[in-house]
């Protein structure tokens, strides 16, 4: 078991390192922070000082090594803009983002999965068709369109809810709605097909042939099997808790990670961008690990070696 854990952990670390290296190189190659931060009219000596200050004159590989050394010491750098610690800047924004994404995830799970399962159990019924239609609507419409439509209807026309900002819980309603509708559709579709697949399996017929009441067939035999693929998808959604709000935060001027990343990229604030990417990569990798463990718990076939025949 420890070895198994270690390989998983090592693989996770490697993934993060690869993501960070890639981001590092792409960011360095894509434009000069000095130009952006200081403006095109800045005097040459100011630009030179800035470049020296941030080590931008060194060859790329030296910058990269220096960056790795920093990372190893858990030093995530300081913002090039106001010299505050980058990690602090990022972590300050995380709660605001989670305040949107966590309730949205809950909605997706609590509405999407039951709707999909219900549709699968009542195939070809009116409810089933309804779920299919709504879920197609939900995941085909892009969130920026949906967000704008919601703003137009509920903020501009009806004036029930604020169009943007963060000043109380009702400011979160429209962003959360925008974010969850697509996910509900996807999860509903996915749960429906997972459930239909499972219901067609021979072991379901066995459970019925045993004389088990239909309710027990569904709860005890079908759902535990359908849970395996569904958990994969939920895992992806958990991984996107931090990164998944960029568009919506921009639409609703919500002061979360998404906004921070937009601003920092525009400003070429490299340390902050890298730090955000690190947090995002870490959250995704963690979600993946969780999914792996959930697999083992849900399906004994994926648990590895059996305790002997």
């Amino acid at each position, binding site marked *: 078991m420890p070895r*198994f854990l270690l*390989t998983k952990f090592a693989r996770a670390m490697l993934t993060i390192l690869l993501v960070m290296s890639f981001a590092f190189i792409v960011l360095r190659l894509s434009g000069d922070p000095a130009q952006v931060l200081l403006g095109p009219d800045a005097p040459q000596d100011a630009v030179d000082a800035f470049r020296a200050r941030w080590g931008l004159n060194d060859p790329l590989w030296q910058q990269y090594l220096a960056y790795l050394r920093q990372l190893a010491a858990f030093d995530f750098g300081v913002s090039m803009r106001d010299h505050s610690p980058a990690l602090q800047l990022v972590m300050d924004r995380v709660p605001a983002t989670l305040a949107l994404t966590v309730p949205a995830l809950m909605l997706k799970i609590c509405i999407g999965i039951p709707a999909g399962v219900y549709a699968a159990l009542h195939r070809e019924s009116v409810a089933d068709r309804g779920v299919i239609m709504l879920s197609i609507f939900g995941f085909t419409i892009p969130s920026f369109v949906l967000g704008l439509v919601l703003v137009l209807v509920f903020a501009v026309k009806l004036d029930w809810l604020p169009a943007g900002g963060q000043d109380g819980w009702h400011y979160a309603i429209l962003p959360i709605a925008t974010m969850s509708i697509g996910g509900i559709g996807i999860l509903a579709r996915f749960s429906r097909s997972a459930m239909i697949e499972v219901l067609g399996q021979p072991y379901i017929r066995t459970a019925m042939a045993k004389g088990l009441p239909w309710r027990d067939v569904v709860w005890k035999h079908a759902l535990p099997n359908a849970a395996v693929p569904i958990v994969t998808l939920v895992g992806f959604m958990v991984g996107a808790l931090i990164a998944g709000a960029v568009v919506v935060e921009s639409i609703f001027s919500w002061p979360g990670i998404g906004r921070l990343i937009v601003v920092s990229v525009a400003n070429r604030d490299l340390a902050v961008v890298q730090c955000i990417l690190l947090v995002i990569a870490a959250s995704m990798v963690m979600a993946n690990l969780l999914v792996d463990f959930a697999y083992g718990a849900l399906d004994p076939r994926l*648990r*590895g*070696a059996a305790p002997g025949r």
Partner: protein
Amino acid sequence: MNAILQATGLVQQYTTAKSLFGKPGTVRAVDGVDLTVNPGEVVGIVGESGSGKSTLGRMLLGLEAPFSGRVSYLGRPMPAPRSAEWRRLRAQMQLIFQDPLAALDRRLTVAAQIAEPLDIHRIASGAERQERVAALIHRVGLRPDQARRYPHELSGGQRQRVVIARALASQPRFLVCDEPVSALDVSIQAQVVNLLRDLQEREGLSMVFISHDLKVVRNICDRVAVMYLGRIVEEAPSDRIFADPRHPYTQALVSSVPKAGAGLRGRIILQGEPPNPAARPAGCAFHPRCRIADAACAAKVPALERHDGRLAACLKLQSNQRTAA
């Protein structure tokens, strides 16, 4: 008589990616097989699932290089897979396997499928190509109008006929049939078995016929090799092996075939599970299930040797005369 195909000491092993917990294991799918196929002969391979029949078949055709051992075709060593010489040989040796729908391209008509090998091996073109296709369709007992059909529009037996026609297109001299009739219903199975027999007799094809249906093997094969856990345990002419099996495994296998009207009496019921190549028992691999095994069987590996007009690998052949009846 010069053998068309000769295999000596064939071994194939695969590494299995085990779970994250255990270390990767190796599975010996075929573990030291000698086999000769003479011109015009049909050799049957029988044995339980996982005994290495298909793996052996692929090595005989040269589709897979053996881990060790040699295959020679017409006295010359089998060229390495995918070499130019190997590609030329493909026309002469063909594989027919169990699932005809998987073997056919669903987007091509019957005629196009059958013409494929003619194009690949540049055997015929133009009018001659069409003639050949028509002749092949006729030979395997399909109707001329079925040439324009697609595989999904045919029944299982008809699809297998298409597969056979395609295999015959390049005028092969050697066929390996891997469970060619197992997916077919009995009434259709008989049609395809008859077809294979006729073709074989008419064209003097040499054939290796893999099946776990002993009744079909009995009907079509001249000689039969029984495999258990990657090795041949008994090999004899068809008449002899079914009338008078001597290896305890063969005896059980033959007696396990239910006969109409015979009831369940007199059958040898083997204890235990089908063998697992990943955990091969020491000594005679069959000893955990053998009803006459003794301590010696667990210690010594029996060699395949001549015994009463056959080859058999058992330590107790002498004392096991006619115990099965």
